[in-house]
C-alpha cells in the first residue's frame, strides 16, 4: 500500500502540451479556415509530443528516485465534479504502471508523429488535411495521457471517451470515402457498447462503495475501501438462473464482468473485436499509434488498474483469461489467410491483445503490462513498416500483388524483419520472447483459473500460428516472384529519412526491448526481471501469490514454445518461398475451412443479421417514424404550434383590434379581477 503521494506539478504539463497544440490547430482551422504552413504544423505537433515525452522521462526519473514503497507522484488541479458526497478531482497520479504507459504513449507516440510527417506528406486529397490530421493526433495523445494518468475513474472515463472519439475521427479521416466513414462509425458504435459496460461497472462500484460508507472514485481510495465490499453479493434475476453460481454472485464478479465488457470493447476482444480490422481504413500511422500501440491497450490497462478487484473475483478473472485466450487463437487463425497486409496486422493485434488479457486474467498483471510494452514496440514497427511498403507500392495493400520487394526497398525489408522476429518470439533476439514467455508461464501457473493448462496450450499454439502468419506476410511481401505490375515496381522507392528514422529506432526496440525485464531463467543476472519488480507495488497481490517454478521447468516450457514457433516459421518458409503453388491447392482441398477463415467465420455477417439489421429496422420503424417523427415532432412540437395557430386564426386574432383602448379595457378587467380576489 502506498503512502502519501508526492506532489509533482510537472505532471499537468504532460497532457497539457498536446492539448495546447490540438487547440491551436483546431481553433485556427475552425475560425480562420486556412492551414498553417506544414513546417509550423510539424513544429507544433511533434514538438509538443516530444516535449511531453521529455517531461515523462523527467517524471519517471523523479519517480524511481523515491523509495520503492512510496513511488507515487500526484498533481491535483481542481475539483472537476463536486456534487453531494460525490467528488471527482481533476487530478493526475503517476505510479509505476501509469509511468510505463505514459512513457510508451509519449515515446512511441512521438516516433509515430515523426513518421507521419513523411507519410502524410504524400497525401494531397484535401488541402487542410495535413493540419487536421496532426490536430487529431495531438488530441488523441492528450486523451490517452489523461486516460493513463487519471487519478480516478471519472477522469479515466474522460480519456476513455476521448480516445474513442479520436479513433473515430482518424479512422474516418478520409471521410469523403463512404466506406471509410462507415468504418469509423462502426468502431465508434462498437466502442459505445463497451463504454456502456464500463459505465455500469463504474456506477455499481461507486454505488456499493457509497453504501459501504466510502463514496469515492479515486483509485487508491477505492483500493483501500474495496475490502469492505469484497464479499458483498448480489441476487441475480431469475432469468439468469442458468448461470454458474446463481442466484447469488459476488458483487465484485458482476463489476468485473462489466469492466471486462468495457475493456473488450476498447481492446477488441471477443465479442467486440469486429471494429478493429475495419479500423485499418484509417491512415497507417493511425493504425500504428491508436490501433496497435496505445489505445487498444487501454482495456488491458483498465484490467490491470482494477487488478485488486479481479483478484477478489475469480469468476471474472477466469472469464478475462478465457476471453483473452480464445480471442488470441481465434484471431490468429483468421490472420493466416488474409491477404490485405494491414488486415493481417490487425488480426495479429487482436490476437496479441488476447495474450495480454490472458495474462491479466491469470493475475499476472506485470506480465500483461510487459507484453503491452513489447507489443507496442514491434507492432508499431510492423505497421509503420507496412506503411512504408504501402507507400512504396502506391497504396496497394494486397500482398498477392507484392512479392520480391526486398530488391527494391531493402532497408524496409530489414526493419520489417526485425519486427517479424520481434513478434514471433525468437529466443533472446526478440522483445516478444520474454514477455510472451511470462504470459504463458502465468497461464501455466494460474491454478485458480479453471482449465489453465488448456489456456497455456492455446497460448503455445497461437504462438506458432503467429510466427507462421507473420513470416507468411514477410515472405509474401519481400520474397518469391514479383507479382506487382511493371510500372508499380518501376516507381517503387525507399521512403525518406524522416520515415526511416523512427523505423530504425523501433527496430532496435523490438529486437532488444525484451531486456527491459527478462526472467531470471534466461538471463543469469539476479533481479534481471526489473520490470516486474518495478511494477510490483502497484499489483500487491491478494489471495494467490504467484508461486514460482524452477528455472529448469521454465526453460523447458520456453523450449517447447520455441519449437512450435520454429515449426510455424519453417512451414511459412516452405509454403511461400519453397513451394509457392501449394497454398492455393491446400485452400482448394479444404474449401470449407478456408472459406470460414477467409470470411472471418462470418462473424460480421452474423452480427449484421442478428443485431444490426433488427436494430436498424426497429429504430427506423418505431423510434424514428413512430416516436420521433410521430410522437415528438407531431404531438410534441408541431401539435401545439398548429393548435395555437388554429386558435389564433379562429378567434383570438379579433382581440388584436389595433385599438389601444380596447387593450386597456382588457387590462383593467384583469386588474379589477385581481383586486376583486383580494376583496374576498
Amino acid at each position, binding site marked *: 500500500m502506498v503512502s502519501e503521494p508526492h506532489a509533482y506539478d510537472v505532471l499537468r504539463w504532460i497532457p497539457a502540451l498536446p492539448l495546447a497544440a490540438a487547440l491551436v490547430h483546431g481553433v485556427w482551422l475552425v475560425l480562420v479556415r486556412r492551414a498553417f504552413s506544414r513546417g509550423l504544423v510539424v513544429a507544433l505537433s511533434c514538438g509538443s509530443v516530444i516535449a511531453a515525452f521529455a517531461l515523462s522521462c523527467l517524471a519517471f526519473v523523479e519517480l524511481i528516485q523515491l523509495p520503492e514503497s512510496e513511488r507515487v507522484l500526484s498533481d491535483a488541479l481542481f475539483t472537476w465534479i463536486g456534487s453531494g458526497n460525490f467528488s471527482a478531482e481533476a487530478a493526475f497520479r503517476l505510479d509505476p504502471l501509469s509511468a510505463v504507459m505514459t512513457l510508451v504513449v509519449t515515446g512511441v507516440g512521438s516516433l509515430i508523429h515523426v513518421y507521419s510527417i513523411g507519410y502524410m506528406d504524400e497525401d494531397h486529397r484535401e488541402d487542410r488535411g495535413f493540419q487536421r490530421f496532426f490536430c487529431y493526433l495531438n488530441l488523441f495523445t492528450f486523451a490517452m495521457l489523461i486516460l493513463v494518468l487519471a487519478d480516478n475513474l471519472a477522469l479515466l472515463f474522460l480519456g476513455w471517451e476521448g480516445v474513442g472519439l479520436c479513433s473515430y475521427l482518424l479512422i474516418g479521416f478520409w471521410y469523403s470515402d463512404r466506406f471509410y466513414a462507415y468504418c469509423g462509425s462502426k468502431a465508434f458504435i462498437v466502442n459505445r457498447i463497451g463504454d456502456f459496460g464500463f459505465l455500469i461497472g463504474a456506477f455499481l462500484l461507486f454505488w456499493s462503495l457509497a453504501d459501504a460508507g466510502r463514496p469515492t472514485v479515486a483509485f487508491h481510495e477505492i483500493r483501500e475501501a474495496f475490502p469492505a465490499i469484497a464479499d458483498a453479493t448480489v441476487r441475480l434475476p431469475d432469468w439468469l438462473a442458468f448461470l454458474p453460481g446463481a442466484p447469488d454472485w459476488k458483487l465484485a464478479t458482476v463489476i468485473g464482468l462489466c469492466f471486462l465488457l468495457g475493456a473488450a470493447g476498447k481492446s477488441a476482444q471477443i465479442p467486440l473485436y469486429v471494429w478493429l480490422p475495419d479500423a485499418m481504413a484509417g491512415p497507417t500511422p493511425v493504425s500504428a499509434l491508436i490501433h496497435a500501440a496505445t489505445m487498444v491497450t487501454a482495456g488491458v490497462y483498465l484490467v490491470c488498474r482494477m487488478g485488486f478487484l479481479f483478484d477478489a473475483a475469480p469468476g471474472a478473472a477466469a472469464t478475462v483469461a478465457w476471453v483473452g485466450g480464445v480471442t488470441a487463437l481465434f484471431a490468429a487463425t483468421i490472420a493466416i489467410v488474409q491477404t490485405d497486409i494491414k488486415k493481417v496486422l490487425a488480426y495479429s493485434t487482436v490476437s496479441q491483445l488476447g495474450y495480454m488479457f490472458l495474462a491479466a486474467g491469470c493475475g499476472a498483471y506485470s506480465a500483461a503490462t510487459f507484453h503491452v510494452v513489447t507489443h507496442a514496440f514491434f507492432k508499431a514497427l510492423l505497421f509503420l513498416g507496412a506503411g512504408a511498403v504501402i507507400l512504396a507500392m502506391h497504396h496497394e495493400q494486397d500482398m498477392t500483388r507484392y512479392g520480391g520487394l526486398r530488391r527494391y526497398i531493402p532497408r524496409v525489408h530489414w526493419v520489417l524483419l526485425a519486427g517479424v522476429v520481434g513478434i514471433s518470439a525468437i529466443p533472446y533476439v526478440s522483445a516478444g520472447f520474454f514477455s510472451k514467455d511470462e504470459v504463458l508461464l502465468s497461464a501455466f501457473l494460474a491454478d485458480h483459473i479453471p482449465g489453465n493448462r488448456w489456456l497455456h496450450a492455446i497460448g503455445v499454439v497461437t504462438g506458432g500460428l503467429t510466427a507462421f502468419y507473420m513470416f507468411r506476410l514477410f515472405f509474401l511481401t519481400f520474397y518469391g516472384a514479383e507479382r506487382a505490375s511493371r510500372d508499380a515496381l518501376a516507381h517503387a522507392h525507399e521512403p525518406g529519412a524522416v520515415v526511416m528514422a523512427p523505423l530504425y529506432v523501433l527496430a532496435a526496440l523490438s529486437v532488444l526491448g525484451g531486456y527491459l525485464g527478462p526472467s531470471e531463467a534466461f538471463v543469469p543476472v539476479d533481479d534481471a526481471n526489473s520490470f516486474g519488480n518495478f511494477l510490483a507495488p502497484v499489483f500487491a497481490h491478494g489471495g494467490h501469490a504467484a508461486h514460482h517454478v524452477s528455472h529448469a521447468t521454465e526453460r523447458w516450457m520456453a523450449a517447447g514454445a520455441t519449437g512450435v514457433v520454429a515449426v510455424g516459421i519453417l512451414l511459412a518458409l516452405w509454403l511461400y518461398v519453397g513451394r509457392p503453388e501449394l497454398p492455393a491447392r491446400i485452400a482448394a482441398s479444404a474449401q470449407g475451412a478456408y472459406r470460414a477463415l477467409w470470411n472471418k467465420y462470418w462473424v460480421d455477417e452474423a452480427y449484421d443479421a442478428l443485431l444490426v439489421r433488427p436494430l436498424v429496422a426497429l429504430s427506423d420503424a418505431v423510434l424514428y417514424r413512430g416516436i420521433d417523427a410521430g410522437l415528438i415532432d407531431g404531438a410534441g412540437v408541431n401539435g401545439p404550434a398548429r393548435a395555437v395557430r388554429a386558435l389564433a386564426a379562429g378567434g383570438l386574432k379579433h382581440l*388584436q383590434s*389595433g*385599438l*389601444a*383602448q380596447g387593450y*386597456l379595457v382588457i387590462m383593467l378587467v384583469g386588474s379589477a379581477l385581481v383586486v376583486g380576489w383580494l376583496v374576498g
Partner: protein
Amino acid sequence: MAVPLEHVIALSGLLFAIGAAGALARRNLIVILMSIELMLNAVNLALVGFSRQWGDVAGQIFVLMVIVVAAAEVTVGLGIVIALFRNRETVDVEDASLLRW
C-alpha cells in the same frame, strides 16, 4: 402626518380612476397621454404616502424614477403624436389602428 394614510390612498385611487377613465374614453391622443400622466401621478401619490407612513425614503426614490420614466414616455409619446399627425393629419387614437390582424 396630517391625515390618515387611508385618505391619501383614497385620493390616489380616485385620481387613478379618473385618469384611467380618461385614457379609456377620450379619443384625443394627447389627452390620453395626459390621462396616463394623471395615473402615474396617482401612483406617485400612493408611493409618497407609503414612504411617509413607514418613514422610509425609498418610496420617494421610486417617485423620482417614475417621474423620469414619465418624462421619457411623454417625450417619445409626443414625438409619436407629431409623426402621426404629420402622416395622417389626425390625433384620433382610433385612426391609429394599423397594427392589427
